[in-house]
């Protein structure tokens, strides 16, 4: 494996990489690889982003759009986690449940979350239920799969130890399967959060009246590429933040167990 880097080297290389990325961007914009209104300079985008903090676009400022998106995200993501994780654990323990759920689930996972948009409108109208359903469709599979696989691959000896020491049924699920597969569950939540966030933005591009996705699609229709890019970068940054947050929990858990 490549030799380890010092902290300073890591930071140095990261900055180099970022500079390289922005360098290509600036170069492409500079030689007019695409017209300026479609390929602005990075500083145009930053300027636009700062402007958006004060001057509303499509009725709301950047932070208001972001807040609207995050609000929707939370409801869908928490629902996905609250349903997916216990269901996955139970599927890992009760074979009949596994047998019932797995074939249904195997079909559903190929269906794009945004394909649910028309059903979301039909079933939930304009309420919060629609976006919740779509985020749920994105975030649920990883939450479920990781809890399921995590509990399926819990070492047999833990389960047998629990049985020998008198535990059974639900007590095994919450005292053994849950903690034993927690790292896997957190990893699943992490992937699920990313997927949920992406499907939310996707859904907002199609049906919403606030949020980062809406901001982007309106900007696109108004040929305002810098705002589209502000939206992409805001999406990216918030996605990274979610990932970091859950990644931190994951690391903490693993450290606590001496991994």
């Amino acid at each position, binding site marked *: 494996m490549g030799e380890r880097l010092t902290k300073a080297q890591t930071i140095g290389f990261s900055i180099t990489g970022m500079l390289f990325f922005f360098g290509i961007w600036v170069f492409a914009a500079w030689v007019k690889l695409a017209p300026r209104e479609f390929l602005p300079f990075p500083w145009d985008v930053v300027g636009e982003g700062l402007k958006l903090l004060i001057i*509303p676009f499509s*009725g709301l400022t950047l932070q208001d759009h972001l807040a609207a998106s995050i609000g929707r995200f939370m409801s869908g993501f928490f629902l996905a986690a609250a349903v997916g994780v216990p269901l996955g654990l139970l599927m890992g323990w009760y074979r009949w449940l596994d047998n019932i759920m797995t074939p249904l689930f195997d079909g559903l996972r190929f269906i794009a979350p945004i394909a649910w948009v028309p059903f979301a*409108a039909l079933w939930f*109208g*304009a309420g919060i239920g629609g976006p919740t359903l779509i985020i749920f469709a994105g975030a649920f599979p990883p939450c479920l799969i990781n809890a399921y696989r995590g509990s399926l691959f819990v070492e047999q000896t833990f389960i047998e130890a629990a049985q020998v020491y008198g535990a059974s049924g639900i007590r095994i699920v919450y005292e053994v399967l849950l903690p034993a597969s927690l790292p896997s569950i957190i990893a699943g939540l992490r992937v699920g959060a990313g997927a949920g966030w992406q499907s939310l933005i996707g859904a907002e591009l199609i049906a919403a009246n606030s949020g980062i996705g809406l901001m982007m699609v*309106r900007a*696109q229709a108004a040929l305002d590429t810098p705002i589209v890019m502000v939206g992409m970068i805001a999406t990216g940054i918030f996605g990274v933040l979610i990932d970091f947050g859950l990644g931190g929990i994951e690391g903490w858990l693993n450290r606590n167990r001496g991994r």
Partner: protein
Amino acid sequence: KDLQEVRIGSQPALFSTLPFLVAEEKGWWKDVGLKVTITNFPAGAPQIAASRSWDVGIVGSVPAVLGAARFGLHTIALAEDQSAVNALYVHGPDSDNYIRDPATIKGKTIYLTGNSTGDLAARYCLKKFGLTKDDTTIRSMDQAQIVSAMSSGSVEIGALWAPNTYTVEEKAGAKLLCSGKDAGVLIPGNVVVRAEWGNAHPHRVAAFLAVYLRAQRWLEANRKDALVLMKKYYAAGGVTISEAAMNKEFDRRPTFNLVQQLALFSRGSQPSRVDTIMNIIASFSKEVGSLRADEPLPDPKSYITDKYLKLVNGDPKLKSFADLNGSGKGQ
């Protein structure tokens, strides 16, 4: 006094929904005893699919047909005549040729938003150019996609509606090839109500209608103030629009006052004007397949009604309220 609730389904940054802002600013909802909540939808399809979450609303005439056939939406008035702002635009080096001789678009690809008023206008334009269904290739895309594809040069011919039309005109230099009006088809925007809700609360519908008509009259009468409001309203929908374009919006979109509405809706022995218009639109829906083969064309009598217009007309208070000048109020 208790205000009565009305849930409005709307779309942002449209001329036909601008009256809601006027009413809001002027406090007219309260004047007729209503308390409204407005929900915005990005397009007609999700709006009617979600029609359980609103009571009255403004939709394009094409979704209105679908709404009538599937979701029991009744057309109770016309919002405006949009024929001039649903149009085919051309862009690129050959655009002048196309304008000079529209028949030369034969064999080209036209991008439009399927099953929309833009689609309707485009098909009538093709008919006018003497082209049949198979002479061009039709591709369906969302308006935002057409706008960016057109201005970046990957689309030569696209069907758009306002205010996207102004964006491509002003920011990309696209040119008008043919509007619905040029093609001789009348494309209205529809004021609709969920039938069972309307039957349960006819007076709220009438009050709503009166306010809407009054706001339209006010916009017509006060162009200067109206432009200020409009700019603000469009900006809130993410559309920056020039002074010239706003004036075009007013000029290209005739509205109808109560008297005209009643005339349009009146059925004697023959079908009313609106019946005829909506029949054209319904046949179009059938032709493009959004009304399925097994679905009958909705009978105009079953979903087009002047019942609420008559309620307004029959109530002196509402009648004079709807007719801004007559009431002496406002401003």
